[in-house]
């Protein structure tokens, strides 16, 4: 009997969609030309790039010349923030972001703080939402950039990006949003939102790893991050990663086309999982917003147990989940996002994130609901923080 394997870590990364793979494949060994070359091999590659750029533009509601391919979501975030900061430092040195951004944003901001910039990190409420009032109050004459993520990678909370964009526009401040997790799970139309810069990453939407996109609204003043050849209209250098660009194009197209159907299915699976856990396991707390949350995000704190132990036990049962962001699960610190929504250190340590994807089924959910309670129970019995009362009732 092969063990069941249930992958519910789709916020960390996703498998490449078969249709995406199929379109990428010829660009490794057959149409391998460099798009900058003028011969037929190069023109084939260039043509594929153009088509992919059109698809991404269509998926985001952008113009094709506002779409710039990067080497990752992280690079898109770095570029947006450093590029705007350095290009506009004549106008001011103040940046506003939040305490719950991805490290790609936070560590970039910390780096800028070392180079003469001032950064305000907005608080969030217990559900992970920023306060528009606090945002308004944080704005100064020297504010040149607001960067607030569209949806959080750990707890799935969605921010009011449209209203943030309005505030930013009113004050003449650039607004960037990290939409890496939102893409595919929320409708994104850059013009409707009114955002100036927006980052996405292919590997979160069944595209390949190592390719991102930065949407840059026409007219934005931004420095380059990676200097060199004339690729991406002289704004992002390096031989184009044609196969990955093709993959990003197809993945973005599928994400936009399937959005409604996908989120409907994810929401139903998500709620089955959330309800099932609350029913079966005492002393759990749903992290994130009850309604303004990504359709595929489930994040619980399990009191008295530590997340890694939970993860490894689930892994032995074939269930791949995460404890906080993919990037923090290797670290020892509890997630900055969970602390920002007010969890105690020990509760933050006991968090479990399950992020659903295309491949998941109701059977997967039921399997998790069958495996998870005894695992939580065993670890709680090992825990000195937890005492089981004799009558089978649970107390602390």
């Amino acid at each position, binding site marked *: 009997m092969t063990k069941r394997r249930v992958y519910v870590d789709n916020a960390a990364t996703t498998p490449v969609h078969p249709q995406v793979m199929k379109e990428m494949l010829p660009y490794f060994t057959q149409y391998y030309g460099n798009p900058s070359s003028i011969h037929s091999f190069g023109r084939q590659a260039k043509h594929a790039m153009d088509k992919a750029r059109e698809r991404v533009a269509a998926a985001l509601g952008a113009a094709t010349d506002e779409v710039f391919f990067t080497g990752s979501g992280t690079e898109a975030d770095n570029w947006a923030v450093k590029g705007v900061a350095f290009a506009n430092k004549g106008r001011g040195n103040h940046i506003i972001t939040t305490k719950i951004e991805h490290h790609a944003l936070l560590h970039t901001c910390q780096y800028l703080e070392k180079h003469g910039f001032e950064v305000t990190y907005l608080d969030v409420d217990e559900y992970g939402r920023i306060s528009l009032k606090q945002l308004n109050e944080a704005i100064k004459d020297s504010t040149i950039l607001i960067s607030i993520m569209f949806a959080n990678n750990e707890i799935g909370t969605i921010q009011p990006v449209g209203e943030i964009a309005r505030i930013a526009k009113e004050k003449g401040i650039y607004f960037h949003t990290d939409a890496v997790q939102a893409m595919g799970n929320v409708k994104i139309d850059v013009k409707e939102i009114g955002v100036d810069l927006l980052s996405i990453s292919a590997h979160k939407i069944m595209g390949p790893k190592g390719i991102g996109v930065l949407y840059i609204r026409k007219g934005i003043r931004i420095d380059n991050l990676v200097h060199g050849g004339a690729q991406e209209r002289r704004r992002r250098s390096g031989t184009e990663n044609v196969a990955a660009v093709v993959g990003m194009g197809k993945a973005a197209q599928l994400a936009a086309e399937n959005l409604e159907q996908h989120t409907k299915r994810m929401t139903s699976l998500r709620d089955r999982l959330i309800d099932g856990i609350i029913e079966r396991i005492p002393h759990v707390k749903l992290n994130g917003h009850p309604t303004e949350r990504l359709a595929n995000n489930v994040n619980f704190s399990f009191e008295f147990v*530590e997340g890694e*132990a939970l993860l490894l036990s689930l892994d*032995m049962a074939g269930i791949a989940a995460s404890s906080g962001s993919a990037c923090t699960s*290797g*670290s020892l610190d509890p997630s900055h996002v969970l602390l920002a929504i007010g969890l105690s*250190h020990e509760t933050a340590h006991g968090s479990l994130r399950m992020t659903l994807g295309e491949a998941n089924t109701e059977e997967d959910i039921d399997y998790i609901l069958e495996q998870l309670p005894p695992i939580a129970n065993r670890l709680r*019995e*090992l825990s000195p*923080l937890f005492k089981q009362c004799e009558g089978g009732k649970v107390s602390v």
Partner: protein
Amino acid sequence: MYNETVMEHFTNPRNVGEIEDADGVGEVGSPQCGDIMKIFLRIEDNIIKDIKFKTFGCASAIASSSIMTEMVKGKTIEEALSLTNRDVVDALGGLPAPKVHCSVLAEEAIRAAIEDYRKKSEGTRNSG
């Protein structure tokens, strides 16, 4: 990430539980750090007759607790005190670098429990 010995001790930890009216109890770590180890000792004639643990923490913390209890069970107090975190790591066949502090916790936990026993028995001696 972890070797088979670690995973085996994590999956089937030895000496889990508490000892009622233990001769010595030690608790180290803190929930903030994500690790708490609590050790219960039954000591007779200077020998660790029984030992139990409860641990809140990651797999390597649980495995370190488990193997440590096996290593000191039946040993004299002095032998138990000579146990180092390196011994725990070696017995586990190695731990990833960022997890070595779990073995330190195991060393500290047994020391804390023995210290508690000594304090308690001094108390007994003094009052007896």
